C-alpha cells in the first residue's frame, strides 16, 4: 500500500472527516455539555443547596439560598466605607467589589503609579486607625487578584478593632473577641494563610449593638 494520494483526494477526505467530526462533536456535546452539568447541578442543589447557590446570608446573618433575601455572599467581598465598619482590602474590580468586573490591578512590581498608590493607602490607613504607617499590614495597601477578596489578615482586622469599637460605642474587648472567634487558620495547618471574613465580622458586630 502506498502513501501517496492526490491533493484532490485528500481534500475530499478532509471534508468527510470534518463531517464525521461534527457528528461526533454533537453527540459528545449532549453528554458533556448538557447531561453532565445538569447532573452536577442536580446533585449540588439536592445535597448542598446553600453552597451551590453562592453561600448567601441575610441581614441577620442567617444562611439563605435565594438572592432575593440575601445581603451578600460570605465568599464575596463587599465595599464598607463608614468608620463603623471593618474595611476590606482595596479592590480593582470596577469601582470596588463590582462582581460583574472581577479583576486585579495588573500593575507590575516596578510600576510608579502603583508605588504612589501603595504609599498613599499606607498613609490613609495609618491616619484612619491612628497608628504609625509602619504598623499597616500588606493586605491593607494592596488590591487582591479577584478584586472580590472576602478576607483580610488577622493583623489588619486587629488594627481596626479600636476604631470600630469607638464608633459603635461598644467595648473594644468584645470586638477583639469577635475578631478572634472569626479568625480562620490554615487548612491542615499548612495550606493557605490565616484570615478573617469581613462580611461575617461586620454581621457579627450587630449582635454587639443589640
Amino acid at each position, binding site marked *: *500500500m502506498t502513501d501517496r494520494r492526490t491533493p484532490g483526494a485528500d481534500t475530499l477526505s478532509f*471534508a468527510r*472527516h*470534518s463531517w*464525521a*467530526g*461534527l*457528528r*461526533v*462533536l*454533537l*453527540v*459528545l*456535546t449532549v*453528554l*458533556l*455539555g448538557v447531561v*453532565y*452539568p445538569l447532573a*452536577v*447541578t442536580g446533585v*449540588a442543589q439536592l445535597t*448542598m443547596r446553600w*453552597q*451551590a*447557590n*453562592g453561600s448567601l446570608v441575610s441581614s441577620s446573618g442567617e444562611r439563605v439560598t435565594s*438572592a432575593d433575601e440575601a*445581603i*451578600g*455572599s460570605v*465568599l*464575596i467581598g*463587599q465595599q464598607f466605607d463608614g468608620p463603623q465598619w471593618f474595611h476590606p482590602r482595596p479592590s480593582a474590580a470596577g469601582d470596588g*467589589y463590582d*462582581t460583574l468586573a*472581577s*479583576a*486585579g*490591578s*495588573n*500593575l*507590575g*512590581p*516596578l*510600576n510608579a503609579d502603583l508605588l504612589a498608590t*501603595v504609599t498613599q493607602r*499606607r498613609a490613609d490607613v495609618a491616619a484612619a486607625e491612628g497608628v504609625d504607617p509602619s504598623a499597616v*499590614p*500588606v493586605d491593607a495597601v*494592596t488590591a*487582591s487578584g*479577584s478584586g*472580590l*477578596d472576602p478576607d483580610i*489578615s488577622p493583623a489588619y482586622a486587629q488594627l481596626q478593632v479600636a476604631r470600630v469599637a469607638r464608633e459603635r460605642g461598644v467595648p473594644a474587648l468584645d470586638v477583639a473577641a469577635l475578631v478572634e472567634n472569626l479568625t480562620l487558620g490554615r487548612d491542615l*495547618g499548612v*495550606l*493557605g*494563610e490565616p484570615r478573617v471574613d469581613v462580611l461575617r465580622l461586620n454581621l457579627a458586630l450587630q449582635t454587639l449593638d443589640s
Partner: protein
Amino acid sequence: MSATWIAVGQIGIVVLVLAAAHKPLGDHLFRTMTATKHLRVERLGYRAMRVDPDAEQRWSTYLLSVLGFSLASVLVLFGLARLQDKLPLDIGMSPMDPAGSWNAAVSFVTNTNWQWFSGEAAAGHLLQMAGFAVQNFLSAAVGIAVVSALARGVSRSGTDGRVGNFWADLVRSTVRVLLPLAFVVAVVLVAGGVIQNLHAHTEITTLAGQTQSVLGGPVASQEAIKELGTNGGGFFNANSAHPFENPTPWTNALEVVLLLVIPFSMPRMFGQMVGDRRQGWSILAAMSTLWIAAVGLLTWAEMAGPGLVPTAAGGAMEGKEVRFGEAASALFAASTTMTSTGAVNSMHDSLTAQGGGVALVGMLLGEVSPGGVGSGLYGMVVLIVVAVFLAGLMVGRTPEYLGKKIGQREITLVALAVLTMPAVVLIGSAIAVVTPAGLAGQLQGGPHGLTEIVYAFASAGNNNGSAFGGLTSGTPFYNTLLGLAMLVGRFVPIALVLALAGRFASQKRVPEGAGTLPTHTPLFVGLLVTVTLVVVGLTFVPVLSLGPVVESLS
C-alpha cells in the same frame, strides 16, 4: 513553624497526593487506551455518530480525523459565541464580535483557553457549559489520543503506519477517564463553596447599603474539567482567584493537584504502552525535576518580595488573595504555567520580576514539565529524540530510541516540532512590537511592557492561556494574531508527532546493542533536562534579557 516550613509543607502535601495518584491513574489510562472492548454507552454513541471505532487508521488518516474534528469544533464554538443571544440561558449576554468569537473558539479548541473577555460580562451559561466546557473535555482528550498514537507507533513495528483509531481514543479517554473524575471533583468543589446553578446574575443591596450582583452559573462542573484537562479558562475573569471558583485554601490545593495529576500520570501510561515501565519513570523524573525547580524559585521570589512595590507594601500581595498568600499563589503560578493550564489564582502581571520570569520560562520550556494533558508527554518524547540524537552524534553511532532508528526523516520531523513554538512566539512578539496596534495593548511601557507582549505570545504559542493581564488583548489585532499563534502552536506539532508515530510504526525494531544509549538511567534524565533547558536558553535568552532580566536588575 516558620513561613518557609509552612510553604514546604504545602508543596509536600501536593507532592504526596500526586505520588499516590499517578500509578493507579496511569494504569487506568493504560487500560483505557489499550482496551479491546467497547462499553455499552460507547457503542450507543458510535452508532449515533456513525463512525467505525475499530478501523485502525494510518497516521495520516488519524491526523485528518484530528483536524476534521477540530475544524468542526472551532466552527460550532464560533457559532455559539456569535449567536448566544438567540439561544437559551444567555442571561442577557450580547453576541461576541467576529474576531473575538474566532479567538475564543480557537482558544478553547486548542486547549489554550486564552480569554480576551470576562466570563461574567460576556458569556452566557449555554456558551460556557455546552461550548467552552465541552472543549475543555475534548481538547484534553485529543491530547491523550495523540500521545497514545505515538506510544502505539513506538510499540509496533513493520506495519504500514497504523497508529489506532482517533474516534475510539477520543471517546474512551473522555468517557472512561475525564468524565467520571470531573463529576466527582465537581461535587467536592461545591462542598467547598464553588457555585453550581443556572441562575442569572441578580442585583442585591449589601449590608452597607450598596448594590452588588450575586453571580450564578454552572461553575463547579466547568471548574473541575478546567483544571483536570489543563485548560485553564475561568468561568469568571479573575479565574481561580475568584472566590466562586476557588473559595478556600483546600480547594486551592485540590485545584493544583488536579491540573498536575493527569500530566504526571501520563509517563506511567507511556511506559506500559511501550512495554518498559522504566521509560515512564525516567520521563517522570525529568518532568518532576523541572517542575520542582520552578516551584522552588517562584515560591522564593514571591515570599522574598523583591522590587520597589513589594518592598514599599511590605510583601508581594498585589494581585494575590489573603486566603492563599504568597506561597500558595506561587505554587499555583508555577504549576499552571508548567502544565499549559493557564488558570491563575493570582494576577501574574503583578508577580515579582523574578517570579514572573520563572512563570514565563515555565511556558517557554515548551510545556513539557509536566505539560498539558497528552501534549506534555508527546512534547517530552520529541525532546527525548533530540537528546538521543545529540548523544549519538557525540559517540558517532546511529541513534535509536526504544528500538527505533532516528534517521534523517525522524530527526527532521522532531527538529521542526521543536522549532515551531519558538518561531510562533518570536515572530508574533516581533510583529507586535513593531506595529502601533501591537504596542497600543501594553498597560506599562519599558521592560515590563515587553514582558506583557512576549508572555501573551508564549502563552498562545504554547497553548497555556495565562496572561499578564495588563495587556489589552481584546482588540482585532491581538484576537486575530494570537488566534493564529494558538492554531500553529497546537496543530503543527500534532501533525509532526503523528507523522513520527507513523514512521516508528512502519520501522522494524532494531535489537539493542552495545552502542544503544539506555534512556532509563539518571544520566539520561540529566541529559534530557539539560537539552530542554539548552533549547530554550539558546532561543529565548535575548528576549528574556530585555524583559524580566532587566526588570529584576533595576
